[in-house]
């Protein structure tokens, strides 16, 4: 394929750090989004993830729709 020829026009000493930096920034953004939009990551970092899993399952059960009484 032709992609390897990229390094004929983009210096590897510029292109590779740029590529790795972009992956790092993207990964940092995803982790930040997870931290700010979920509760269980914070609980995990506080060492109480196990209860977070149980609690998430119990809240799902309690929110279940009421069954029709015939």
């Amino acid at each position, binding site marked *: 394929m032709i992609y*390897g020829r990229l*390094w*004929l026009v983009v210096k*590897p000493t510029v292109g590779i750090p740029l590529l790795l930096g972009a992956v790092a920034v993207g990964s940092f953004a995803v982790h930040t989004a997870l931290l700010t939009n979920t509760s*269980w*990551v914070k609980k995990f970092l506080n060492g109480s993830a196990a209860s977070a899993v149980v609690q998430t399952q119990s809240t799902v059960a309690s929110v279940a729709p009421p069954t029709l009484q015939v």
Partner: protein
Amino acid sequence: MSNATEVWPTGLTEGQALEIHRNLIQGTQMFGVIAALAHLLAYIYSPWLH
């Protein structure tokens, strides 16, 4: 393959460029495997998608 003596802006020959790229792709694949494993562990051990 263009002729090996052609001079490109970066000064690399085509062979050198393809060699660098081969290693970069291999490293990226290794990163991908590690990331897939991390996502599997996150799926198993965290409330993600449960």
